[in-house]
């Protein structure tokens, strides 16, 4: 076992013990899982580099030197073969893709091993901290390892084997990939998209350009960040971009096109085939977040009198990149959707059976203007793999497949979380700010409390001293926190019940329940405050009076907060109908500010009305 960092720069001696130069690089043959070292690059006197065959000339090697079998004069130079890679030049210090760990890493060192007496093979690239330490100084590595050991930890090597490496800069180094490579091309498109998202913009474009159209289209559909996908498309040459778009499923392509600016989108669409273009334009004609927007127009539909054999033939004749087929849909003479046959029924059925005999007629359908969330819920409810979308005349326009429904569910779930106040709605992965903003959101009441104190302090005049103002403000937190809770009460209700569910309580019931809660809590607050005041603070009557007045104002504000809950519910539902995103935090903020206003108003009224 030896590392490249330990070999570079070592002297090379010939049979006579004459130094002919120092180790500059090693060449490997790329065809194997653990590639053999085939040549030795030497930097001779006067910095002239030359290469010699490893197998023919190298006798032995270690951490200090390389010993050749022959005398210097007998050496014949060789040249870099097309399938050879110089590992120090092409791999060391370069960025590679770890196709198993799905990450982009930098090669810190290369690990080599002798499998037989004179044969040296590349085990893999070291990408961990140990490679860095070793290159800095082998002693440093040993010291750090010892310290780690005494702390009861080990620092493992992180080796990536040759067959799990993919070179990011293929075009620069001209390194050819061996057949056994598990390269980017073979990864699942979702993983490819993940890796691409981690690269610098320039490399992202380069790696993307190396994928074939199909792979590119699939990866494109898998980007989490639509804006990034749109950016890549924007940076491509138009004919390439339109080719990739044509390759994509029309529903994914439509989503991507809608992210581009109008001019660019038009240009790309015009470059596409007539059929694909029509499909995408049709989808783009529907409103966002509707069934029409997410459906695909790739489905199999046959007339009622077709046989099982016809159906099988039709499915076999489909393009490779056709959307997955789960059902065959039937139409009557007037083109209306009349039934559905599942794949399983087709397999079970005799070849000459008429499809209308084995079809299922009681179809669940949706219209293109239906909300995508409703469609997704129906797909889940009826255990469908695809939901047909039909127009007013029951003509089949497209199908919403289960994978798109899952995406919708995920999206809606995130929206719900946002309303519940658990996320900022910034779903493009900036999680680091979550903890901080979570804290700020939850402690919002404090800032509003302080705002209240400032307001009351600035309007306190004359005989109302600062202490009295502060005594009044003592009760403010309970009013503000309850206002926040009232909003939580609303959002919970909103998430739990749909407006058109039969078993959902009516608006009136909700309002009454809110009112009840408000009365209950404000009464408790008032009673407890009065009780404490009368038992403990009898001696300071003025102070007590102020504190009680504050709590009275607080309980009035609590009552108002809960009384207004139906309004918030109304707002949430209205916004949902108009497909607008709402954030629970901003609702809570509004309601807290209202509570503050009510509190201040009541305090002002009561202090003006009563002489102290």
């Amino acid at each position, binding site marked *: 076992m030896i590392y490249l960092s330990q070999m570079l720069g070592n002297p090379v001696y010939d049979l006579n013990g004459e130094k002919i130069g120092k180790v500059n690089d090693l060449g490997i043959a790329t065809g194997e899982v653990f590639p053999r070292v085939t040549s030795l690059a030497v930097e001779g006197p006067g910095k002239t580099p030359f290469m010699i065959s490893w197998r023919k000339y190298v006798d032995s090697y270690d951490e200090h030197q390389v010993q050749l079998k022959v005398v210097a004069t007998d050496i014949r130079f060789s040249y870099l073969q097309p399938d050879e890679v110089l590992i120090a030049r092409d791999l060391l210090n370069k960025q590679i893709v770890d196709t198993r760990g799905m990450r982009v890493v930098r090669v810190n060192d290369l690990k080599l091993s002798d499998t037989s007496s004179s044969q040296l093979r590349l085990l893999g690239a070291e990408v961990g901290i140990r490679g*860095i330490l070793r290159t800095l100084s082998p002693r440093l590595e040993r010291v750090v390892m010892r310290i780690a050991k005494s702390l009861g930890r080990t620092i493992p090597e992180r080796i990536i084997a040759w067959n799990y490496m993919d070179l990011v800069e293929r075009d620069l180094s001209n390194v050819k990939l061996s057949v056994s490579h598990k390269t980017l091309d073979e990864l699942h498109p979702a993983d490819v998209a993940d890796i691409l998202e981690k690269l*610098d913009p320039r490399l992202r474009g380069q790696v993307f*350009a190396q994928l074939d159209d199909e792979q590119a289209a699939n990866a494109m559909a898998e980007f989490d960040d639509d804006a990034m996908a749109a950016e890549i498309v924007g940076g491509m040459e138009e004919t390439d971009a339109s080719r990739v778009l044509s390759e994509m499923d029309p529903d994914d392509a439509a989503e991507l096109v809608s992210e581009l600016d109008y001019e660019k989108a038009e240009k790309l669409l015009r470059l596409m085939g007539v059929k694909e273009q029509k499909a995408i334009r049709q989808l783009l004609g529907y409103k966002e977040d509707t069934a029409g927007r997410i459906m695909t127009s790739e489905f199999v539909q046959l007339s009622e009198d077709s046989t099982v054999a016809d159906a099988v033939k039709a499915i076999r004749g489909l393009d490779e990149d056709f959307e997955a087929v789960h059902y065959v849909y039937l139409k009557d003479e007037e083109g209306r959707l009349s039934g559905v046959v599942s794949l399983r029924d087709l397999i079970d059925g005799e070849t000459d059976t008429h499809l209308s005999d084995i079809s299922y007629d009681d179809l669940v359908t949706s219209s293109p203007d239906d909300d995508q969330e409703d469609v997704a819920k129906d797909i889940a409810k009826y255990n469908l793999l695809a939901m047909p979308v039909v127009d007013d005349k029951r003509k089949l326009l497209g199908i919403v497949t289960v994978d798109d429904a899952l995406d919708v569910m995920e999206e809606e779930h995130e929206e719900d979380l946002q309303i519940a106040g658990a996320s900022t709605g910034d779903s493009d992965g900036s999680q680091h700010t979550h903890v901080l903003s979570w804290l700020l959101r939850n402690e919002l009441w404090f800032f509003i409390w302080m705002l209240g104190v400032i307001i009351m302090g600035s309007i306190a005049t004359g005989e109302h001293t600062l202490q009295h103002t502060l005594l009044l403000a003592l009760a403010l937190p309970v009013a503000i926190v309850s206002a926040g809770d009232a909003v939580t009460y609303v959002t919970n209700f909103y998430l739990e019940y749909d407006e058109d569910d039969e078993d959902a309580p009516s608006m009136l019931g909700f309002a009454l329940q809110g009112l009840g809660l408000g009365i209950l809590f404000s009464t408790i607050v008032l009673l407890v405050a009065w009780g404490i005041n009368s038992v403990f603070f009898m001696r300071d009557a003025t102070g007590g009076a102020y504190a009680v007045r504050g709590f009275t104002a607080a309980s009035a504000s609590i009552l108002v907060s809960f009384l207004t809950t139906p309004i918030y519910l109304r707002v949430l539902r209205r916004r949902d109908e108009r497909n607008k995103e709402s954030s629970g935090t901003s609702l809570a903020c509004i309601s807290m500010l209202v509570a503050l206003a009510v509190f201040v108003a009541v305090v002002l009224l009561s202090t003006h009305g009563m002489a102290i």
Partner: protein
Amino acid sequence: MTAREKRAKSRPAEQERAQGKRIAESKAKKTGLLAMLSVMGPGLLTALAGNDAGGIATYSSAGATYGFGQLWTVPLMCLLLIVVQETAARMGCATGKGFASLIREKFGIRISAVAMLSLCVSNFAVNVSEFAGIASGLKLFGVPVYVSVPVSALATWMLTMSGSYRRVEKILLAISCVFVTYIVAGVLAQPDWGKALHDTVVPQMSLDPAYISLLVANVGTTISPYMLFMVASNVVEKDLDEDDIPGQRADNVSGAIVAEVITWFIVLTTGTVLYPAHIVVNDAADAAQALVPLAGQYSSALFAAGLVGASFLAACVMPGVTAGAVCEAFGWERGTNRSWREAPTYYGILTAITVLSAGLVMLPGADLFGIMMASQVINGVLLPILLLCMVYIASDRHIMGRWANSKAWNGLTWFTIVAVIILTVIMFAFQAMGY
């Protein structure tokens, strides 16, 4: 060779060509002024971030001590700044890689480790001086240190955490508008324009050690190590390529000129107002305060506002540049669209620099002046090393292709390097002699 192999072999070359064409075509469409403007930003911001707390302190004390005597250095500094920034930006455009990446790939781990370690130390020290600048600037407006530093630290931290360079570029450019205040302050001071212009063009040399050491400090604050990293990484993040090089040149040249015009006005203001009154200033806040009785409340307030804005701008970019460069060199995940768990080192360095430097400024009895001096010494040592790395990379045709340094440009860069080395040696000599 089978047909399949042949195809496989010819594919990369074809694709490379297709790709080159692809980029060329997509870029060919945006020409003219609009295209120029769209690539503006990296150079301008970097040059402006150079006029930070340390810079303003040096320029004000140059003006206060020698009047217009050092104005002639401004055009010269401008030239050096252009040489350094243009080269760094061109490297980013031509390779699509940051400066740290290039150092690592050309010079290996050892030199990278040295460069990164000293970059960390130097940027940390610079960041300390930025917070000190914010603190002393805001103090003139009556804001105590224990409020101004934590709040600005939190603000810079959140700004750097909130997104990539491209997202915050506009915010930073908006902040840098604060530099206009120096020009207004300069006009308010009613200088002798004719003499100022004359002294700008005609060099005056003095062998006074204090004069020379101020000159050295001047170079040190104008060209700082982080500049090379910042301009290149911003270019990379903005995904500018070879076709953007002309625009990038315009950006860097205009950025350097704007930055030096501001420098000129700072020297002008302090030279007009403080020099005749024989007031010696040590830092920028001193200068702002000294302006009050002589030039009026407004030019002092403008001066202080400029100081706060400039320091804030630099404090926003410093931690991100450092963390980005270190992670780039060692291949760790970086960038603000990762989570903490994915890029712990990146966020660790970023947060540590912000927290530690803000904490150090708030520490009672901390020798801020000493820290600033130490940072200048470190910068002085690091800068020649980095400039050497830069010139070797920039003249390497294997890396830069046809955008490698021309002979004339190489000459200019070498002139810069030699000048910096000589000045650094002089600075050390003076310090050893106790000036």
